[in-house]
């Protein structure tokens, strides 16, 4: 059977289908490896009990909430320390707590953030720690 105005309709349809199926042909069936955040910094390796301020599951989904709370508490209420569920006391600070152990921003924070296309604004103000060699020369 005849298709009327076939040219514009089929071109439009092709563009639409191409757009919807873009993720498929963009990767060409090539597996994209999931991120692999590294936990092997020297600071972590000398720890006796390797534990974070909260459980791994919680940190995976909600670390940004803790950071946001810390900021609010520090800036609004001058509360600069955080007591974990296990009773440990940490300075409520990205640079003086988190990054002390996770000093490898590029191999830790950035792996997942880049994978899901996030550019958190932490680093607009905070400085990532210099890697070990740089620290030694300081």
């Amino acid at each position, binding site marked *: *059977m*005849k*298709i*009327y*105005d*076939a040219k514009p*309709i*089929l071109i*439009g*349809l092709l563009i*639409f*289908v191409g757009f*919807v*199926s*873009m*993720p*498929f042909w*963009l*990767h060409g*069936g*090539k*597996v*994209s490896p*999931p*991120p692999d955040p590294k936990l092997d910094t020297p600071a972590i390796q000398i720890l006796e009990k390797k534990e974070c301020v909260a459980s791994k*599951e919680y940190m*995976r*989904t*909600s670390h*940004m*909430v803790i*950071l*946001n709370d810390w900021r609010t508490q520090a800036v609004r209420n001058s509360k600069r320390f955080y007591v974990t569920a296990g009773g440990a006391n940490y300075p409520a600070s990205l640079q003086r707590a988190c990054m002390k152990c996770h000093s490898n921003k590029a191999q830790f924070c950035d792996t*997942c953030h*880049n*994978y*899901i*296309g*996030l*550019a958190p*604004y932490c680093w607009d103000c905070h400085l990532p720690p210099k890697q070990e060699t740089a620290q030694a020369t300081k």
Partner: protein
Amino acid sequence: MGMKFALGVVLGLALAAIVGVKVLGLQYVFGVVIPYAALGTFLIGFIYRIIDWARSPVPFRIPTTAGQQYTSLTWIKPSKFDSPYTKLGVVGRMALEILLFRSLFRNTKMQLREGGKLTYHWEKWLWLAALAFHYSFLIIFLRHFRFFADPVPGIIQWLENADTFFEMGLPGILLSDFVLVVAATYLFIRRVVIPQVKYVSLPADYFVLFLILAIAITGMLMRYIWRVDIVSIKQLTMGLVTFHPTVPKGISVLFFVHLFLVSILFAYFPFSKLVHMGGIFLSPTRNLPNNSRMVLHVNPWDYPVKVHTYEEYEEEFREKMVEAGLPVEKPLEGMEEDKAE
């Protein structure tokens, strides 16, 4: 009644995903099989609908005109978009229609006043809500591309940054999420509150609204309240688009509900009024130039018709007609002979 039924179906679907994942452990079915099937149904169904429409001839110009046509009288101003007579005018009309919902902008409220007086009221809320709804939906759709591309294109990141413009909380409040929910809620309330609109509302009308609202709400829950591990989720989605499906452990059931409802939306799309996404481009009352007076339009189905003239008819049935005593134009040959004798 229709409303309750539609709500029941949406809640039932959500429950089916929860039971399927939590009780029966069908992560692979809900995470891989159903999304693939839904996308296939969507693409094939959508193409079928468009081709089906494209095969329907539109022999004559039937644009709805809302303005003065082209005229040879120079002192009458033609209305280029409301009664377009050139291709360019039609493109302009379609662009205004698709991007700005111009015909909805013309919407007025009609009311019968005391003494039988008919009045027309300014009514832009439907247009505003529809525009907000569609554009926030588009932004949300495009933002989700970050789960289907590795590396994520810069434009998607830019879109997300623009969407979290106010930098409220972490993860930042996405404006489009809230605009979508507010606009869709308005569209729902409007449907219920205005008696005439409620009267013409079918279960299918409520169903898509509830489905989209449920998708938006599950998506927002996953971001703002019961946060999920989006790195594992991206592993799943990337597995889908690279044809190496995997279902990583530890993905929240909320994600499966969200994905299942989205799959339902995709699969249902070609069968529902939602195909207006493609249909708007093929609306003959919008996309035809009003040029009946300048161009001859020939009906494409005018083909040689098989006819049976009266002469042929009489030739075929003359004997029977004479037998039944019906008058004939040409008498039977035998009868003439009888008379001669």
